[in-house]
């Protein structure tokens, strides 16, 4: 009988780290390597509780380390927040579509992240940096709620230190200990070159992405050059249960990464 795509593989957490409030990162050592494409996700199973779809946040060039950054926000993820090194999870995947790294070759790339949206973008950032000569200018724009909510801050600051990369971060509000800009993420657009030939990879809350696309279009960016990562509730992750559908699209297999012009008409219909 064929192997069932519903049966997960057991994997033990080898490292669990607290990130920002309610957010933690798990690493699984997979000696045989867990190959994936940047943008894909896994279904993570917690014994007796349930499964959730979580983007893979690791380095695609280091498949022996599977990394997931998770926010404790629902019944399953809140249980996950209590688990740690040595606990065994069920893993199914990788599933879904990937950031089009080949299509972006030879172009300037603009990566726009909002809040936890930096987690699904981390693998593609690492891919761009590992193949730096294949791309033109690479710019990362990141918006978060407050300075304390900047995800992967030490890594962002290390990236910012490179000469071949531009990283700008902005927060919705701050105290006197923040010397960077304050405001919505689109405020960063004025300070960076934005050309119609750029490739844009964006992930964040849906409202932020819609707002950002409007601002990008005002600056001449065509919709065909923008890719976003969408989120919908998933049960099976493999296109069989029907839950993740957005109009005719299964977000688990046609997405989660979509070219914006193809998904745009569906984002403006309320409650689709």
């Amino acid at each position: 009988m064929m192997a069932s795509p519903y049966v997960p593989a057991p994997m033990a957490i080898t490292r669990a780290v607290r990130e920002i409030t309610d957010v933690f990162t798990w690493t699984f050592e997979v000696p045989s390597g867990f190959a994936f494409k940047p943008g894909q996700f896994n279904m993570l199973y917690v014994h007796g509780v349930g499964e959730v779809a979580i983007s893979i946040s690791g380095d695609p060039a280091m498949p022996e380390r599977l990394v997931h950054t998770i926010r404790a926000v629902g019944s399953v993820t809140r249980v996950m927040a209590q688990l740690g090194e040595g606990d065994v999870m069920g893993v199914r995947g990788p599933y879904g579509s990937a950031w089009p790294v080949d299509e972006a070759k030879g172009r300037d790339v603009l990566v726009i992240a909002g809040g936890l949206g930096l987690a699904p973008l981390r693998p593609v950032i690492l891919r761009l940096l590992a193949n730096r000569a294949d791309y033109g200018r690479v710019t990362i724009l990141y918006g978060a709620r407050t300075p304390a909510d900047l995800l992967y801050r030490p890594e962002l600051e290390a990236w910012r230190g490179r000469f071949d990369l531009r990283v700008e971060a902005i927060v919705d509000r701050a105290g006197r200990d923040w010397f960077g800009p304050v405001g919505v993420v689109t405020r960063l657009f004025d300070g960076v070159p934005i050309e119609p030939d750029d490739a844009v990879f964006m992930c964040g809350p849906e409202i932020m992405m819609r707002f950002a696309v409007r601002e990008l279009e005002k600056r001449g960016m065509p919709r065909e050059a923008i890719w976003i990562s969408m989120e919908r509730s998933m049960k099976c992750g493999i296109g069989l249960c029907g839950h993740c559908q957005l109009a005719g699209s299964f977000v688990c297999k046609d997405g989660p990464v979509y070219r914006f012009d193809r998904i745009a008409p569906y984002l403006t219909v309320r409650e689709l």
Partner: protein
Amino acid sequence: MDDLERVLKAHPFFAELEADHVQFLVGCAKNVRFRGGDYLVREGDREDTLYLIRQGSVAIEIHRPGSEPTCVETVGPGDVLGVSLLATAAAHLDCRARETVVALALDSACLRHKMAEDPRLGLAIAMRLLERTYERLARARLQHLDVYR
């Protein structure tokens, strides 16, 4: 051309404003410089100056007892402060220079007078103020939604 006139012309707020309008406004304008920590505007002050920021970063802040002032937005080169010049309202937020800030300061009373004298100029300025205000409102709404929660 006057150095001040050239600087006015170069600021994005006055982009595409007719040359004779720019000249007309020079009399209302002067160059100003703030050190880090100086306030351009304090809550409660009459909003009597339109600032066109040329260099440096300004924090728009609100203060309350028991905690540090909260910055709700930063503005920088190309932005304007004091857009409510048409109403003589009191400022509802502090605007504090975070570093050395160089700006053009236009006296609101002078500006209003010139706008009344030349309605076409008045319309051009009003439209620009409206656009900036609309954009600021849209951003404030988005921030208010707290989408990253």
